[in-house]
């Protein structure tokens, strides 16, 4: 629809979160309004300390139909996981 506001994807960093996470999407006429709307729609229960908005049309996504070629080849390459190393206790949580 021509008259509809563009869709924005909303990313929020929580109180103790290290990175912004995708929480949902909403409509807004411009980026600043999208931030304010995100504040009202997604942080009313103290969910966040920082908001990013990205116009959905600006996101390039992988093709769901190409899933097999994109992701399956990694499945049988277990040697890529660092599970074959003994981690010294001193190294702590990795």
């Amino acid at each position, binding site marked *: 629809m021509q008259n509809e*506001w563009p869709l924005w994807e909303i990313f929020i960093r929580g109180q103790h979160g290290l990175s912004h996470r995708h929480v949902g999407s909403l*409509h807004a006429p411009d980026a*600043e*309004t999208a931030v*304010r709307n995100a*504040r*009202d*729609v997604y942080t*009313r229960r103290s969910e966040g300390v920082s908001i990013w908005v990205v116009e959905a049309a600006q996101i390039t996504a992988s093709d769901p139909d190409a899933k097999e070629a994109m992701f399956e080849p990694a499945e049988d390459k277990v040697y890529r996981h660092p599970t074959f190393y003994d981690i010294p206790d001193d190294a702590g949580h990795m």
Partner: protein
Amino acid sequence: MSGNTNASLFEFLLRQGDNTLVLGQRLSEWCGHGPVLEEDIALANIALDLVGQTQLWLALACEVEGTGRSADDLAMLRDVWDFRNLLLVEQPNRDFGMTILRQFLFDQWHLLQLHALAESSEDRVAAIATKAEREVRYHVERSSEAVIALGDGTEESHGRMQGALDRLTPYIGEMFEADAVDAALVRDGVAPEPARLKPAYDSAVAAVLSEATLSMPSVPVAQTGGRSGKRHTEHLGHMLTQMQWLQRAYPGAEW
């Protein structure tokens, strides 16, 4: 505190609490009817901020009055003539533009007033004002941007916003009116002289209206009578019948 000072403080607290109560109730009428989901939630959030502030102001009013009435009693069991809100906030929602413009005219004043009250000599007043100011800073940002977007929007939205401004401008003057209650509060350092806020209000409002391509009509006489309780508009009574019906029909009912 002398009895007279107490009575003035009580009256002042009613004015504070009734402004936020009546406007909060008006905004909550939009819940589920907003033009888009995002605005619907935003208006409900602001309504809840205002009702939350009401609880603080009216609870303090009861404490000052000291007769055992509760904030709920004041909100739900008083009739029109005992309300002390500005006439502006009891005006009906009408369309979204009118709602936003009413909000804008109130928010700009509310922020200036709370900012001054944060320095009040009465600690309990200063504490409520400090908390409320943070919320209202956001209200101002939101309503100002909306006024600009709609005023400087389409021919249709511009016309509606100018119509709303023409209709609501007569209610601005009451914000800066002063009576004996105000004089007592100013003397004690509890609240600022209302007229002192006017220059900052006029310039803040003018800046937004100019960006919104709206023009303030000249109004010969301000509509007053709400904060003094002398004469409310016909709209407040209708609003109270909705807001208070449950306590009236089922006295003492609780969750």
